[in-house]
C-alpha cells in the first residue's frame, strides 16, 4: 500500500476501565470526532497491559499503539499506573533501541472527564503515525497476506 492521503493507520488504544475508557465514552457522547481506525481495547487498569500485548498488537498489523490510563495519583487501584509508567518507559525505550520508531508508541493519561483530551490525543497520535506510514519493523508477514 502506498502512503497517500487515504492511508489510514491502524491504531490500537488500550484504555483503562475507570478513567480513559470513560473519557472515550465522554468524547463519544459529546460527539467529538476522533478517527474511526482507533480500536479501543478496554483493560481493568493500565497496568494490566503486559508488554506482550503491545508487541502482539504490532504483530497483528497495528501501526501504532497507545496506552491510556488514569492520571498518576488517580489510579482506581491506588498505584497501578505508577507501575505502568515504569514498565512502558523501559519497554518503549527498548523498542526504540531495536530501531522501532518511538512515535509509534505512546502513553497518555486521560481522566473520565477529559473527553476532549481523548479525542485530541487520538487525532494527534493518528496523524503522527500516519506520517510514519505502515509499521514494517515489528510486523508478522504471515498476517499481512
Amino acid at each position, binding site marked *: 500500500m502506498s502512503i497517500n492521503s487515504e492511508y489510514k493507520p491502524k491504531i490500537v488504544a488500550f484504555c483503562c476501565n475507570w478513567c480513559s475508557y470513560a473519557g472515550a465514552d465522554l468524547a463519544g457522547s459529546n460527539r467529538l470526532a476522533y478517527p474511526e481506525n482507533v480500536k479501543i481495547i478496554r483493560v481493568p487498569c493500565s497496568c494490566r497491559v503486559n508488554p506482550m500485548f503491545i508487541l502482539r498488537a504490532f504483530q497483528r498489523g497495528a501501526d501504532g499503539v497507545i496506552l491510556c490510563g488514569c492520571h498518576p495519583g488517580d489510579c482506581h487501584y491506588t498505584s497501578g499506573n505508577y507501575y505502568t509508567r515504569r514498565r512502558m*518507559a523501559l519497554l*518503549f525505550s527498548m523498542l526504540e*533501541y531495536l530501531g522501532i520508531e518511538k512515535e509509534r508508541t505512546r502513553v497518555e493519561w486521560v481522566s473520565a472527564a477529559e473527553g476532549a483530551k481523548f479525542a485530541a490525543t487520538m487525532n494527534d497520535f493518528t496523524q503522527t503515525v500516519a506520517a510514519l506510514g505502515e509499521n514494517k519493523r515489528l510486523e508478522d508477514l504471515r498476517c499481512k497476506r
Partner: protein
Amino acid sequence: MQKITRENLINKAIELLDNGTVSRVLGWKIGEFAYDVTPAVFTTKEDLQKDFIFDDFCNANFSKYLIAETRKAEEKVLVFLKPCDTYSFNQLLTEHRFSREKVYAVGIPCEGMLDIGKIKALAGEGIIDVIPGEGSITVKNLYEEEKTLAYGDVLTERCLSCKSKKHVVYDELMGEEGDVIDSNRFDEVEKIEKMSADERFAFWQSQLSKCIRCNACRDICPACTCEKCVFDNPKSSVNNKAISDSFEEKMFHIIRAFHVAGRCTDCGECSRVCPQGIPLHLLNRKFIKDINSFYGDYQAGQEEGSRAPLINYTFDDLEPGEAVGRGV
C-alpha cells in the same frame, strides 16, 4: 597474592564433606578436552580428586542449580561462587527461590574466564591443549602447531566488562576479596544508541534473525526461574518454537529480557551460551542502563531483599514519552 588452585578447592570440599558441614558439592567436572567443563554434583572424596576441575573454563554459574539441588536433601550443599555468581545467588535469595540455610557458599576469586569460541576463531580447530601462562595462553593443536594468545583477546565478553570482583555473599571466602569495578559495560549499548534508527534496526534484525529458538539463553539464565515459562505454555499462543517471518524471535527476546529487567544481575550467561553468537547481553544491559538513568543506580543482587525497580515507583518518575531516547 596466593592463587587459588584446583587442589585448594578440592581440599576445602573434602574438609567440609568430612566434618559433615555439607553432603554434596556443586562443582565443575573435567571434560573430554581442555575446555569442556560440565557442572556436576560430587559426593565423595574420590570423585572430587578424580573429576573436579578448576581452570580458566569454569564459566558455569551454579546459582540456578541450587534451586533444584537444595530440594533434594536436608543436608547443606557446598557451592563455589565466583564474584559475579554471588550476585545471582543473592537475587535468587531475594526472590525466595531456595533456602539460604541449605547452602554453604564459598567465595572464590576470579580473574576472568575464557571463551573457547574466541580461542577457536583465533587459533583454529583441532585444539588439544590450552596452557595458561602469564597474561597469555598457549594453544596446542592436533597438527603440532602452537599459538600464544593474549588473555584479553580470549576472555569471555562478560569478563572483559567485569562489573565486580567483590563477593556480595558467602559463608567463607578463599583468597583475597576484590572490589567493585567501574566497568565499561555500557559502552556497547551506547554505541548502538548512537546509531540511527535504521542502523539499529538493521543491526538487531541481523542479530535476532540468527536465533534458532533453542531457549538456551532462557534456560541458563539464573533470573529465569518460573516453573512454567509463558513460552512453553500452549495456551499462551506464543509457544511457537518457530522462527517465522522475523516477528516471533523479536517477541521472544524482548519479552525474555523484559521479564528479567530489574532482576538481571548482568552475569552474561545468555550471550555465553547462545549457539548462534547473538549478543543478548546488550538487550539486558540496555534495561539496566535505562533503569540506572531513569530511576537511579540499581544493581540486582547486590543486596539481599532489595526491591527491584519494576516493582517499585516514586510519585515523580519520568513519563514514558520523556524517557524514550533520553540515553542518546
